[in-house]
């Protein structure tokens, strides 16, 4: 017999169910209970950078909109700093970088207002330092060696839960007008199938002068969105 490793096991996930709004967005469930619902204001009034709107729809395998989804966003400020002690730098007062939205019960549309995040430092090689990018340091056939370089393209981390989703799905929103940075992004470059990369890129339009990024999420089937095990 070998010695026991005394690690605890992570609590297993379960679906958020159809009534997730009761707990996490009670106003949408149809009643006011909290003085302050959390997650409505991602960037706050003092955030620097470009004000944007991000919106979309979540689609199931039959092509139908999923109308009981909750999405949470986690992003850096316009200078690439997260509102967290382990992210070097400072964020503006009131910048939380986190938000949650639910889909409209009738249409399945969701959306949030925020600022466009700046690029964030990529991870370094094990024990190494982040260095400036060098062209020859692209990944090999096993996807190794991407570390030790550069920055990640601007992105918003997204977590998706709903009835029928047993464990929350992680994905990232990238921006169409950052083509150069997206092409260099180490996570984007981990996606072996180039045609799947576009599932992570939000398209940009202007509405009343405000940039609106469209990001539809396909849970299953043709053009299925890339989801991550983070």
């Amino acid at each position: 017999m070998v010695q026991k490793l005394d690690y605890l096991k992570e609590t297993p996930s379960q679906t958020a169910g159809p009534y997730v709004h009761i707990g996490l967005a009670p106003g949408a469930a149809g009643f006011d209970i909290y003085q302050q619902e959390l997650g409505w204001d991602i960037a706050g009034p003092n955030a620097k950078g470009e004000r944007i709107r991000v919106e979309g729809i979540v689609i199931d395998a039959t092509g139908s909109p999923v109308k009981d989804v909750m999405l949470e966003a986690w992003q850096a400020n316009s200078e690439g700093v997260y509102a967290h002690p382990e992210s070097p730098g400072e964020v503006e007062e009131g910048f939380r970088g986190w938000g949650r939205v639910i889909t409209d019960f009738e249409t399945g549309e969701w959306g949030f207002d925020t600022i466009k995040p700046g690029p964030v430092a990529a991870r370094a090689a094990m024990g190494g330092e982040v260095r400036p990018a060098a062209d020859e340091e692209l990944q090999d056939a096993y996807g190794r060696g991407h570390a030790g370089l550069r920055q990640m393209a601007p992105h918003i981390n997204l977590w998706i839960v709903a009835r029928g989703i047993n464990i929350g799905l992680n994905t990232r929103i990238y921006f169409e007008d950052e083509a150069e940075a997206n092409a260099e992004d180490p996570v984007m470059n981990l996606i072996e199938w180039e045609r799947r990369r576009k599932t992570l890129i939000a398209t940009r339009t202007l509405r009343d002068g405000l940039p609106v990024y469209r990001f539809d999420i396909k849970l299953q089937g043709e053009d299925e969105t890339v989801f991550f095990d983070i």
Partner: protein
Amino acid sequence: MTTPAEFYERDRAWHPPAQTPIYKTSVTRSPQYALLSLQQSVSEITGPTFGHTDIDPLDRDLIHNYAKDGGSAIGERIILHGRVLDENARPIPNTLVEIWQANAGGRYRHKKDTYLAPIDPNFGGCGRTLTDENGHYYFRTVKPGAYPWRNYVNSWRPAHIHMSIFGTAFCQRLITQCYFEGDPLIERCPIVNTIPDMAAQGQLVAALDMNATIPLDTIAYKFDIVLRGRRSTMFENRLDGN
């Protein structure tokens, strides 16, 4: 800048898989392609933080947080308490725990719930709190009732409380459900049975905790929550953390 210390890899054989046909809604809502595994960057090892200004102390008392003047919710009065730990058994302090549930009759206060069991006018069904410096949390509520749902013709959910926990990093984010010791519906539930491992299922069953009851007032259940543990940074620090 050095590489951030990563969190332990999630054991996806311990969690429910995405596609579980016994739980019918998962069939069209589960990705078919493999997840793309990421080594963690600052995007994954950071996450939102919350403070006492975000919530009200009454938010953790579901018996009273939606009750009219002098009223209280109807049902079996319970304390639900426990600790939020990581896989290294270290407490996670000041982390946000949110819960939601049906009332004692199995009815949710939600415009999409049309079950014929009545709404309790003094019960909302949601609560939230921050863990203390030792990772401990507690709620006061009523024990939820079982309720029927359209999966098989005669499917009934066991009594359960939905729980949402943040931890310190976006990669620790977790939503789960807490069940109650001794409930014969647990082993029959398709949603519980999306979890393949029986020991993992058992981790979701709160234990009756007579030591934490308030005699002549409120009974108690204990439910500990474990979030992903974190590696030490091998080349920067001693391994004393593990």
